[in-house]
């Protein structure tokens, strides 16, 4: 066996797995989006662009934009909170950092559904937060917490925050502390140093975290279903409904396809941002 074939052999099981369970289904979805819906829920194999056009119908496009808005808000909040947490962890003594990171990702080790249900308990009309507010002397009409857009955003931020912490921590911990010191030495205040040196150098981490949360949020259907209480739909719920209740697979496929394209576009944008920030890395030695 030659050495150059070894990587291929080692990779092939994973590649086959991905191909069979990821690429093929995606292609099926892609194809499905261009077929007609059968009268009783089946698929009629004639080409059409109707499904695609329907995605951009104001009725559905509004849901699309709403989902993007919620995902964007969740990603934005998670980015700010996550960056701050990562910054704090990275500025702790080195030996404490692994422990703090471990605590940050600890919620991942418990079930997603359980954690989301926990928020129902917290946000409930007679839940912990309301009771706590009463206990602190808050009187009068309590704003509705559960089954609102805010509840969905809170749930999404909570669930995906660890991703942002990790993605921001990586570039922050790699920063040479002398670079920030050099900025101070050249006359910059602490805030100026952060804005002109630290932040631009760690933007790739924020971009990665933001896109990650956005992509996971826009397609999410569990959190809106549980914390949104069916009051409003996100695109994930719409796709779910097309496949499982409306039996309109081609339209579900068309929605999925557009969603996937949006996600791919964002991931590419994020790759470009990362590339920019690293300055193209053309090393010249000498």
């Amino acid at each position, binding site marked *: 066996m030659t050495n150059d074939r070894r990587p291929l052999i080692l990779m092939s099981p994973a590649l086959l797995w991905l191909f069979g369970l990821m690429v093929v289904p995606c292609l099926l979805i892609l194809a499905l989006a261009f077929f007609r819906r059968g009268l009783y829920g089946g698929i009629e194999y004639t080409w059409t662009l109707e499904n695609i056009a329907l995605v951009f119908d104001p009725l559905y496009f509004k849901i699309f934009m709403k989902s993007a808005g919620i995902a964007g808000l969740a990603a934005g909040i998670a980015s700010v909170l996550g960056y701050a947490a990562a910054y704090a962890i990275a500025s702790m003594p080195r030996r404490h950092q692994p422990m703090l990171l471990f605590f940050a990702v600890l919620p991942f080790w418990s079930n997603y559904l359980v954690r989301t249900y926990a928020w129902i308990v917290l946000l409930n009309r007679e839940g912990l937060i309301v009771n706590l507010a009463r206990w602190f002397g808050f009187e009068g009409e309590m704003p509705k917490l559960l089954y609102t857009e805010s509840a969905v955003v809170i749930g999404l931020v909570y669930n995906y925050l660890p991703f942002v912490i990790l993605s921001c921590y990586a570039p922050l911990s790699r920063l*040479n502390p*002398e*670079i920030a*010191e*050099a*900025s*101070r*030495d*050249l*006359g*910059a*205040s602490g805030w*100026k140093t952060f804005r*002109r*040196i630290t932040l*631009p*150098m760690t933007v790739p981490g924020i971009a990665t975290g933001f896109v990650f949360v956005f992509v996971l949020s826009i397609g999410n259907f569990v959190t809106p279903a549980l914390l949104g209480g069916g009051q409003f739909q996100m695109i994930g719920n719409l796709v779910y409904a097309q496949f499982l209740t409306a039996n309109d697979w081609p339209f579900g496929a068309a929605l999925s396809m557009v969603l996937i394209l949006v996600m791919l576009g964002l991931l590419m944008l994020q790759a470009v941002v990362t590339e920019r*920030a*690293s*300055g*193209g*890395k*053309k*090393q*010249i*030695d*000498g």
Partner: protein
Amino acid sequence: MTRPLLSLQNVKKCFGTIAAVDGVTLDIHENEFFALLGASGSGKTTLLRMLAGFEDLTAGDILLEGTSIANIPPNRRPVNLMFQTYALFPHMTVAQNIAYGLEMDKLPKAQIKTHVDEILQVIQLAHLAKRKPDQLSGGQRQRVALARALVKRPKVLLLDEPLGALDKKLRGEMQLELKRLQHEFGITFIVVTHDQEEALVMADRVAIMQDGALLQVGTPHEIYEFPETRFAADFIGVMNFLPVKVSRGAAHTSNGTRIATDKPLDLPDGSAAVAAIRPERLHVGIQSDNMLTGEITAIAYHGLDLLLHIMTPLADTPIISRMTADVADHHNPAVGQQITVGWSARDTHIFPA
């Protein structure tokens, strides 16, 4: 001399119970090229960081032109530091890196551009102004770091191992280049280095640091020719140490020969000491105050000169004698030969063992 530019008064820095800088008192003058020389862990970098404002003082004070700067944060000190890692901003071009400090001073745009262009000419990197740091060679990065600190025209420029990352040939060139820039800009330079040759070549005055304290401060000539301690003698250059014993107010070798020295010998009779002589002060074939015979055990050829290793019964390690190329041509030393070298009383230092 007038009031010193920079005055360190019993400066002390403790990390926990360890004193990294242990009571340093030192005056540095305007337009001086000063070198802090020491092994790693001697506290020289900590002292430099205290001058830059990155370490606070445990005790003592630092005065700049007579005013204390001990409590002034680094961004408001008229002092700049060139970092050992250069610490260039990777997301900015060469020109942006250099302009950064001037922007912080809120200089008008046009003036910043003039200053940046000027200094790019001085460091001969005008053609690379738009490059990012990782597209530069090590030597080019070093010059950008220097320009970035120098363009602010600080009262004092601090340089942490400025030539440490360069290869040997470039280092030699840059030693003279730094000296030239220091002269041209008329700024006080304080260089931290572990490289004694670098310190001797560049500096007007050198301070040897050991365990957080200054061991000796002086011109390169004073430091090299008149070391005050055995450590200083050993640390700078090559030094031969001959074990001796003090009796009747003079140093004697193990075979009883009296070692002549013109320096006062204030060690009690019976105490053990060492006689220290530089290799280049040992001469062959000349009648001198002190003479010594031994066998050549090795010859190290350096082109300009030879280093002879001479084994004598007086010491456990060979005595090293430097012989210039033309003397060597005349004497033709060879391994196994017996050789007699002599040196004058003036070149003999005696230290307690």
